[in-house]
């Protein structure tokens, strides 16, 4: 809000400063984070809290650079991203399909709907022990967990979006001789897209939660495993570095997805 100050207040007022302004605005917006960082560093440097409770921010950054240099955080990070990416991709493909068919076919709805309604409110983290029992400590247990956890939010958003599709559009398409599949692809799917895409955004956040949870509890690789291991080993600056990396990855994934979503829905604005 404070970006909308009158121009007289703004130090870079010429037209050529648009680039500078684009740089400065996020700085102004995110300045509170700088305040927090400075407070953190001050508290740690003055030893108000012991270093094994709050390592200083500079120590955390240094150990982050070390973890990147040794490649440890990179390989574990790629493991985690692979798990979350594959699980989410499967959930989006299967969930969107199931949701669209549930909305357009009463028979599909009556058979799949009860299962969806039964399993939707279940806290998906309860599945972690079973996944370990069935699939072990590797990638498969995480991918399947993320797939199952994200499936229902995606399916329900596709279902709700498709249910909102204008019936006259569907009728006119089929009266012009469009097949069921064509109606689905060219009418129902675009109508469902906005709601489906916001459902996927929720699934994206869920997928990171499930990834980190399952890696914390039962894994031998991945960022969540690293956090647990470093914490158990008492290497707290490296643990904080990994925690912040995971948090940042989740944030970046969400921002990237928002950009993608904006592009995919650009046709709607006009």
């Amino acid at each position, binding site marked *: 809000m404070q970006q909308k100050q009158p121009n007289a207040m703004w130090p870079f007022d010429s037209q050529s400063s648009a680039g500078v302004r684009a740089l400065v605005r996020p700085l102004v917006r995110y300045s509170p984070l700088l305040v927090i960082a400075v407070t953190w560093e001050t508290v740690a440097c003055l030893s108000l809290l012991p270093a094994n409770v709050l390592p200083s921010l500079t120590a955390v950054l240094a150990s982050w650079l070390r973890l990147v240099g040794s490649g440890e955080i990179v390989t574990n990070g790629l493991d985690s991203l692979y798990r979350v990416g594959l699980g989410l991709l499967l959930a989006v493909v299967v969930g969107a399909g199931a949701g669209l068919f549930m909305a357009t076919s009463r028979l599909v709805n009556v058979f799949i709907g009860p299962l969806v309604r039964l399993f939707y409110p279940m806290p998906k983290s309860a599945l972690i022990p079973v996944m370990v029992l069935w699939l072990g400590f590797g990638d498969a247990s995480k991918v399947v967990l993320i797939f199952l956890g994200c499936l229902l939010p995606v399916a329900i958003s596709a279902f709700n979006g498709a249910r909102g599709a204008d019936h006259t559009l569907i009728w006119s398409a089929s009266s012009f001789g469009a097949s069921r599949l064509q109606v689905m692809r060219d009418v129902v799917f675009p109508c469902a897209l906005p709601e489906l895409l916001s459902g996927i955004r929720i699934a994206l956040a869920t997928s990171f939660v499930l990834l980190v949870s399952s890696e914390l509890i039962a894994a031998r690789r991945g960022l969540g495993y690293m956090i647990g291991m470093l914490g158990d080993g008492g290497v707290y600056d490296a643990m904080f570095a990994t*925690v912040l990396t995971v948090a940042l990855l989740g944030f970046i994934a969400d921002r990237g997805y928002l950009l993608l979503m904006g592009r995919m829905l650009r046709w709607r604005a006009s």
Partner: protein
Amino acid sequence: MARVVAVPSRAAVSLSNHTVLRRAFWFLAPAITPVLVVAGWEFAARSGGVSAFMLPPISAVMVRLGADVASGDFFLNAALTLYRTFLGFAIAAAVGVTLGVLMARSRLANWFLDPIVSIGLPMPKIAFLPVFILWFGLFDASKITIIAVSAVFPVVTATLAGVQGVERELIWSAQSLGAGRKEIAWEIMVPAALPQIITGLQVALPTALIVEIVAEMMMGGYGLGAAMLEASRQLDSPDVFAGIIEIMAIGYGVVAAAGWLRRRLLIWHQEDARSTAA
């Protein structure tokens, strides 16, 4: 779809028979898949195709579930899980609504909190669980803190959006009747934004439960999640599956109760009444 109809003597009867069967099919159909799943589970487990360790028969799981209920273990664990979930959730609700109102009313609060909320909302807060364990120990305090931290962000954003969407006329009328800033915030804005605030709370509540289960699994002790992980450590698979069913029932109950409460609380709200009637 079984549509084999006994051929009746008169056409009129045949028609009504047909519609009755049709009605019966659509009435019973929702039960078909769950029944098939249960039957398929039992059959797969009994046929020996899957080992009893990987998939114990559902009858064995139900027996274990009955034993858990009879011994009172289920009630103890469920009570502890729900206690921590609701305490963390209540803190998140109180803090979240306050911060949301504050952000809508004060530029300073908005400047400071806006970047924190916009980064905190999509971030996987559960990654901070080991940090909270380090700070607050292995008992309830760290669990309740991670629940509150995980659940607070949707409440803040929902409250902020709701309060910002309150009609100006409402606020102006309250002002012209002499209401102060505090009164406007808590007696006009929050009630008017209540549908959105409750939606935020409805997002936060399942999150709280998910996080509580994970925290229990990480830390052990009592609770449904902890009991389940303990069972899986001892390779007691009927107990693991019983745990899933117990947690599922709790999750279902909590979400259903929240929906019921929403309808009770918003019975006066015309917008919400309209949306549920539609």
